[in-house]
């Protein structure tokens, strides 16, 4: 009678994409890769220039390798954003864990140094959790503050360990730089990690509470949820994830510094947002964030290939993030 078929179809498509937000993102990722291949033929499909293999496992491996730490930090953002929070200390925490691990391992050995690194990270998370969950400081302010404090502590710490030198555990080097069948060894950490996060979000009581707190904290409280417990656990978990990402990144970059993983922070927020996570809470997907991290890496490669000056690259990077997010909101009708 009056159901215009086109309206119906577009509504249905919108709803389908809304329920499966990863699909348009993957399409966009493929589009970018095609653009890359057109700009520099043979980069991704070496067969066209006579090398073997249909796709360059080297290039794809490299893409994945550098997307992994970004995707792990994006997990911190997705989880905290679900509760309408954010973790701005994640980059610093990753750096702290990497630096502490590298400087402590000559003194105490590999195993204990990793433990110490993770505990240092978890400590920052605990402070974040207490601040935002119990004292109710806004997570943006809280994690910004603890991030700065942790940076300061790291500088003080550096003076004490300056003579001990650094050593990067061989295991982390293997994980960070090694390859198996052309794919980065980092996947041995990342695949179980990703399954764990996806399972946590969808099939665990804790995951359900994250969504509940972000949708309507009052309703969660009414249902008997003690939100401070959830938030403390969440920020500790987020910092442990950031620490793991930092350790992996250490093995990848191989030179510990006082700002090692810091530049990954804002891209991790961008990856989460591009991946369809709402900063207002209650909606988010880690699958989307993984694709978001891949998209950011491809864009980065694309801009490097264009041989643009650094300033222009950063500008275009920002513009593309805004454009992707706007397009995404349009397609799926969500914020």
């Amino acid at each position, binding site marked *: 009678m009056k159901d215009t078929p086109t309206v119906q179809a577009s509504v249905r498509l919108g709803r389908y994409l809304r329920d499966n937000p990863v699909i348009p993102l993957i399409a966009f990722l493929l589009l970018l890769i095609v653009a890359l291949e057109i700009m520099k033929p043979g980069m991704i499909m070496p067969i066209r220039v006579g090398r073997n293999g249909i796709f360059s496992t080297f290039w794809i491996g490299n893409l994945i390798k550098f997307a992994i730490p970004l995707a792990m930090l994006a997990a911190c953002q997705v989880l905290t954003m679900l509760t309408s929070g954010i973790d701005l200390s994640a980059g610093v925490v990753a750096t702290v864990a990497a630096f502490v691990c590298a400087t402590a391992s000559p003194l105490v050995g590999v195993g204990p140094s990793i433990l110490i690194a993770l505990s240092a990270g978890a400590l920052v998370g605990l402070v974040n959790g207490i601040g935002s969950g119990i004292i109710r400081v806004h997570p943006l302010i809280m994690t910004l503050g603890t991030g700065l404090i942790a940076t300061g502590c790291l500088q003080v710490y550096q003076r004490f360990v300056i003579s001990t030198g650094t050593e990067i555990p061989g295991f982390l080097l293997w994980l960070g730089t090694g390859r198996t069948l052309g794919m980065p060894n980092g996947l041995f950490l990342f695949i179980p990690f990703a399954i764990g996060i996806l399972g946590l979000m969808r099939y*665990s009581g804790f995951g359900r*509470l994250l969504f509940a707190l972000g*949708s309507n904290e009052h*309703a969660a409280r009414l*249902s*008997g949820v003690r939100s401070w417990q959830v938030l403390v656990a969440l920020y500790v978990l987020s910092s442990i994830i950031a620490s793991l990402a930092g350790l992996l990144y250490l093995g990848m970059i191989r030179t510990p510094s006082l700002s090692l993983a810091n530049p990954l922070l804002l891209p991790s927020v961008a990856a989460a947002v591009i991946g369809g996570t709402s900063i207002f809470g209650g909606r988010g997907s880690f699958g989307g964030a993984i694709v978001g991290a891949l998209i950011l890496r491809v864009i980065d490669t694309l801009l490097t290939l264009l041989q643009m000056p650094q300033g222009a690259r950063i500008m275009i990077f920002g513009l593309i993030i805004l454009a992707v997010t706007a397009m995404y909101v349009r397609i799926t009708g969500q914020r």
Partner: protein
Amino acid sequence: MTNVQHSNPILDAASIAKSFGPVRALTDARLRVSAGEIVALLGANGAGKSTFVKILTGALSPDYGRVLIRGKPANVGSPAKARASGLIPVYQEPSLIPDLSVFENLRLSGTSVEPFLEFVTKLGIEDIRLEDEITSLPLATLRILDLGRALASNPQVLLLDELTAALPTDLVENVLKVVREQADAGCGVIYISHRFSEISLLCDRASVLRDGQTVGELVIKPGVEEHVVELMLGAKIDLYQREGLSSALPNSSTPRLSIKSLSAEPKLEDVSFNLYSGEVLGVVALEGQGQDELFEILSGFRRQTSGAIELNGNLVSFAHPADAIAKGLMFVPGDRADALLAERSVHENIALPFSAAGSSWGPLKRRFENERVKHAIEKLQIDTRAQGEVRRLSGGNQQKVTIARWLAKGVETLLLLDPTRGIDVRTKRQIYRLVRELATQGAAVLFYTSELGEIPLACDRTIVIFNGRVVDIIDAKDATEQVLMRAAYGLERQGTEA
């Protein structure tokens, strides 16, 4: 421009249709309002009333159909344009900006102060100061201010959506009087309410929606209620039938809940009563007599300043709703929006309490949950066609979800704060029936309602709170509206020995 226009309706909406994915909310809705006419828009839960209102006010665009105001297409699709063409809505939730003063809110909407003050005074709020901040004013006052603002902006058509829900009775009278005057002055009024008493008092005609379709337009005259209900439900029912038989008051000597001299700032002075298992105890009070504080204390949202709560004879106190839930006291708040995760599924909303405790943060117990959630959904007959997101459900179905949550969890003492506010007759009856059934199974139910007529339908006894104190306890069989009303105003009961 005069005679022809005059006989035409001010507002004429015809053949309106709207679908949300597979759910067809409206198929053929129509509404005509002439100058000086008050038309009641009626419809059961899920009949498509909210969607129709959203289309009339421009919040949604129809898939099909047109809305004319004074013969010209009202550019529906944007609330601002609907407003500009003269259709001014007033909703249950006042649309005033909380952090601004009354004056600033008027400035924002371009309303002139003089007529506004005149209307507000006429509506019965005399002590309003323009520099008062919105947050500092009680809800009932805000509703009046919102209405005053709408009246002052020269509406062609006023749309009043559940305006009198939870307004104190004296204000309701003023509101009805002023709305009538406004209509007599040539304004068209669309009046949405679930209260038949107001409709028969105020309205000229009623337009009834059922399953997305306008099924009848009636002239209001005595006895029309039965016919309206019949149209709304599609089958004849007895409107005033008592749900189930009164369960005899159990003789158990210890009450489930014993409240002793409870007080809390600012309204609750000194409340004591006993709630036995197997009974539904009504709470009657005018707006702001301390009932909100009472429910907040019992549900663990706040602490009393003095007094005690005994549960099965043992002293208890709750620092958090989780403590109250652990003791079997479960709360359904008056505002559905406070209780629901609007963007999450029906299942998740109902199953939320299962994951609340730290010990259940691990893997979800799917089978256990599904069984209980399904049972609760069936028990309450929740329409699950749009179960992906609770906000897509109709108001009545949303309310059922808030109750289903506790049914699934297993309830011992249910605290209901105005659970039937703004929902249709059929859903109300389902809720009465459910409450009676829970009581029969041994639960204790505390049932506050702002509609006095519900007390004899759902409760065994009722306490009446006035000025923060229990002023009377009335048996359901004596609880006529007059008796309750007198008591709610703190008047002595007539014919008692006192």
